[in-house]
């Protein structure tokens, strides 16, 4: 499997009247062809900024790329002009967003919104484009597609609108689909339908998916690899079994413990994480999690831990997992 997307040391900041907000602080990762990578984190950790930056959807200014490269099929997205981006966005890389109702244009018929993307990126005449539209609606399991193309978004349910969004995203058969919280606005039974559709499309077309979510259940269901993000940094990455069965970063462990499980007894209390994430206006120099971590040591406050690899695919950024920490008992200072 080749690398489809290779992000190297990406940093993004926002210039505001109070100073610089460091939303993304040096992240590196890659996406292989045909795999699903989940990026998990709490609100404000920078996951949506990161996904927007991959297709230059951030408003610049105030946002700006501070450093790093985003290599998509070997070409650096950061260096692309807006004109060049238009050939990539919606064509090779597509996005679906959290709220399907506001993402669709309320004054345009469904069919026209789908055809827009086809006409832009493909050399098809009107009839062929219309046929392709119906095909796309069938791909996302919309009943009676001929009837739907002449309807407006307000005539459809939210779940139906999200399927239209997926159809629009998939028209030009993109290599990469970025799904930013695709089911957060949906009910569980509809969520199950949408996740099934996304899996089906991936099996059929071999699309790579970046799935941004905070729902660990969806992560367990959908992803091959998982990246845990906290305060603009990646703190742990591994394949899905490694993350769920053997979390190495204290934040990952606590995140997993804070979700109520269906088989949990009512007298058990949830492991809450006290406090709240740091302000990215002046982010801490050391580990961003140190003030909420019950295993924090002196070094954590002042020095950012590097990646410690536990297997070829699994790393965590925590001083406890540093090879030098092996000899000290847990919680003692180095």
């Amino acid at each position: 499997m080749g690398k489809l997307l290779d992000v190297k040391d990406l940093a993004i900041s926002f210039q505001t009247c109070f100073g610089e907000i460091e939303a993304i602080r040096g992240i590196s990762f890659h996406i292989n062809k045909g795999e699903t990578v989940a990026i998990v984190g709490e609100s404000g950790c920078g996951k949506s900024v990161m996904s927007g930056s991959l297709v230059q959807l951030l408003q610049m200014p105030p946002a700006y790329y501070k450093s790093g490269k985003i290599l998509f099929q070997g070409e650096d997205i950061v260096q692309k002009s807006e004109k060049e981006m238009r050939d990539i966005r919606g064509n090779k890389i597509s996005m679906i967003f959290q709220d399907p109702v506001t993402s669709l244009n309320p004054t345009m018929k469904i069919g026209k919104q789908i055809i827009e993307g086809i006409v832009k990126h493909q050399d098809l005449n009107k009839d062929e484009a219309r046929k392709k539209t119906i095909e796309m609606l069938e791909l996302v399991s919309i009943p009676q597609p001929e009837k739907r193309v002449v309807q407006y978004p307000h005539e459809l349910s939210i779940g139906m609108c999200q399927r239209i969004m997926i159809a629009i995203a998939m028209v030009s058969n993109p290599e990469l689909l970025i799904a930013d919280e695709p089911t957060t606005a949906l009910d569980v039974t509809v969520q199950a339908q949408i996740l099934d559709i996304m899996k089906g499309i991936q099996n059929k077309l071999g699309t790579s998916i970046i799935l941004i979510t905070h729902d660990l259940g969806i992560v367990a269901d959908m992803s091959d690899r998982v990246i845990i993000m906290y305060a603009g940094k990646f703190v742990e990455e591994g394949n899905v079994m490694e993350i769920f069965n053997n979390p190495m970063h204290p934040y990952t462990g606590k995140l997993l413990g804070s979700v109520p499980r269906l088989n949990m007894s009512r007298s058990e209390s949830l492991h809450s994480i006290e406090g709240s994430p740091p302000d990215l206006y002046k982010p801490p120099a050391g580990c961003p999690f140190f003030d909420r971590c019950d295993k924090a040591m002196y070094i954590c406050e002042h020095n950012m831990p590097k990646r410690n690899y536990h297997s070829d695919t699994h790393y965590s950024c925590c001083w406890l997992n540093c090879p030098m920490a092996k000899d000290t008992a847990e919680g003692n200072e180095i």
Partner: protein
Amino acid sequence: MKRPLISVRNLKKYFNVGRGKFLKAVDGISFDIYPGETFGLVGESGCGKSTAGRTIIRLYEPTDGETIFNDKNIYDLSRNEMRKFRRDFQMIFQNPYASLDPRMPVRDIVAEPLDIHNIYSNSNERRRRVIELLNLVGLDEKHADRFPHEFSGGQRQRIGIARALALNPKFIVCDEPMSALDVSIQAQIANLLKDLQRNLGLTYLFIAHDLSIVRYMSDRVGVMYLGHIIELADSGDLYDNPIHPYTQALLSAIPIPNPQEQRNKHRIVLGGDVPSPINPKENCRFEGRCPYVLDVCKKKEPRLREVKKNHFVACHRANEIIGGMLN
């Protein structure tokens, strides 16, 4: 036999949407809530669970039905009597960003119920009570003079809880209190609500769409679908042995945060969407999506009946499902 704190009987709330049509948000629900317990109400958006919660504490006037509290039907009370009753009912709202007045400092937000009921004439006593309440929810004195925008979502929800506790209520309606919060913060609020219940002997009506949180919080759970309660049971029993086909589908749709289990489980994917609650037909509301549908389901509305001890289901084929004859 324990006496219920609140009895809801055949409660209905219709909204007139014009042209002789009615949106039947809540269409005849009945249940009891016992002192000290948490009664959970789950369902998907539009099923009427929030309307039910609001009608029970008379934020909406009901179309029909009664809610009995202290041997009185609260809908018969006059404005003045209702104000006295309201001291015992409070509500925690879903969106902590919208439910706190942005121009009021926290001390006034928390003390507003105290002021309305003229509890304290002395400002020192009032302040002492505010600080006591803030401490109760894990905030402290220094927060009292700040404004809502200075707090994070979890802290704002704590302020909302402090306000709800100000008058020592007996009964609190929690309407999706965690759904606007991050998972790690949700756990903080869940633990706080449980601690408060234990220490202050509160009774909750807990409304949420997140089934795993409802299971964690509630003693008994009612599942709503299009204005009806279709299943009602002890929370353990409901989650382990769901009977109504809708409950089964709903539970199987929850993604489990464990890759081995999640990928091996059988998921019932329902076709279609929830039908419109405007002028629904007088048959089983789930009929169009149910895998076990019969002719009788299309003609007659099933009543909520006790099929096992303390386990109520509104389904014509409940007995067959219990017997394992349908699979």
